[in-house]
């Protein structure tokens, strides 16, 4: 008998492994009718969650399961949808991975918990609570929603998030906000770096605080802010032409703290670090 060429052998092996790998994965789809202002609660240990706007009145969900050791429990109760990854037996993070993709009405409020993430939400104009231990959390183009984002070490990015309330808490994950404003925005990290680029909107209250991370703020000349910055053991530097305003309750110390206003000073901005470096500059 003729022996197979070696190249053909490896192609067969690769195809077999791919087929075996593909066989371990399975895809599940869920389709629901959702009324206005519905709510979705998703709990996933390992794997990504991506949420984008879909057709009004419908939720289309795809779950890619990476092994047979897990299943997805999905149940609808009225206008609330509950999705949960359920372990059938002990599984490693790779075996326990489920990747979700949700196409939902833009006014659907969300609660998403994923240990490792990533969690990505775009174009959803509703309240959301996004939480993950090491998950990377990304929120883009949200208008008017209340956003709560919490991680231990996962990075958090908000971009084009407007006119809502934002609360971000992370121990060591870096937090990056671009073109984000709202009525109240609080960022609290232990040593995660906080980076804000934008104009702080109009008449909002902003608190960016951490223990030992850096805080970098870049704002345009048109920003209307009343700003204070203080670092107990770190340094504070400013390249923005603020108007110095005496704050009776706030003491200014060169290199440690400053206060000032720009334009009408309509948004209140408080930058606070224990030992990190705070730097404010003009865009």
């Amino acid at each position, binding site marked *: 008998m003729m022996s197979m060429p070696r190249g053909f052998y490896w192609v067969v092996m690769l195809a077999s492994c791919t087929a075996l790998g593909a066989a371990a994965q399975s895809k599940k789809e869920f389709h629901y009718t959702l009324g206005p202002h519905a*709510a979705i609660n998703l709990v996933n240990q390992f794997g990504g969650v991506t949420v984008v706007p879909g057709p009004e009145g419908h939720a289309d969900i795809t779950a890619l399961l990476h092994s047979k050791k897990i299943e997805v429990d999905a149940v609808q109760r009225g206008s609330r949808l509950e999705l949960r990854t359920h372990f059938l037996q002990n599984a490693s993070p790779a075996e326990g991975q489920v990747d979700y993709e949700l196409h939902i009405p833009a006014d659907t409020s969300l609660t998403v918990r994923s240990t490792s993430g990533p969690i990505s939400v775009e174009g959803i104009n509703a309240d959301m609570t996004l939480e993950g231990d090491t998950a990377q959390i990304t929120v883009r183009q949200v208008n008017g929603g209340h956003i709560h984002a919490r991680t231990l070490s996962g990075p958090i990015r908000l971009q084009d998030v407007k006119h809502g309330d934002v609360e971000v808490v992370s121990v060591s994950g870096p937090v990056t906000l671009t073109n984000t404003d709202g009525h109240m925005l609080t960022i609290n990290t232990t040593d995660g770096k906080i980076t804000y680029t934008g104009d702080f909107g109009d008449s909002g209250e902003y608190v960016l605080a951490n223990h030992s991370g850096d805080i970098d703020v870049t704002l345009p000349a048109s920003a209307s802010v009343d700003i204070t910055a203080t670092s107990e053991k770190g340094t504070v530097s400013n390249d923005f032409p603020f108007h110095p305003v005496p704050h009776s309750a706030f003491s200014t110390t060169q290199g440690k703290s400053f206060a000032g206003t720009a334009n009408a000073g309509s948004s209140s901005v408080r930058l606070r670090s224990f030992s990190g470096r705070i730097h404010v500059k003009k865009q």
Partner: protein
Amino acid sequence: MRPEKGELTQAKKTLVPGLTEADAIDRAKRGDAESFEALYGMHKRRVYSLCLRMTGNTAEAEDLTQEAFLQLYRKIATFRGESAFSTWLHRLAVNVVLMHLRKKGLPEVSLEESLEPQEDGPKKDIGARDNVLAGSIDRVNLERAIESLPPGYRIIFVLHDIEGYEHNEIAEIMGCSIGNSKSQLHKARMKLRDLLKTSRAEKATRN
């Protein structure tokens, strides 16, 4: 979960003259003391009764009621009104109780149905016709019977038949399958049936 029995809308509930539940919630979010007390007054019985029925222990129920309301007050700022306040509080209280029971060592809901009669399980009622219960149960006897259920049966019976949770909700809460929830509920009801019939027979004997 079905709405609370006889529930009014939030806007109509009046706790003290001029203070509706909706107002009290708004004020409580801002730390108003009177509103905290008003909300407690409105919901204390339901929360305490739930805790007492699920634990069967007065001291634990008192502690858990306290913890449930404290959690409520800490989290009230996050209540956005997507569901009825009472539903939200109720769910919070159930979670508090279940966390407590798990720390104590919640009786595991078995993954496999046992076909053998369990030591404290209800007798299988096969073949023998018996006097029906209909019309003979009073609230006191039923409460006593529920109290004497084994903890695993009692939890699922309270959640389903008294508090109105659906099996899929119970399955999620308890980490079991829907089938298991139905099976355990059936066993709880069978056990209650036995207890109530025994109680009725004893009463008849005394009379």
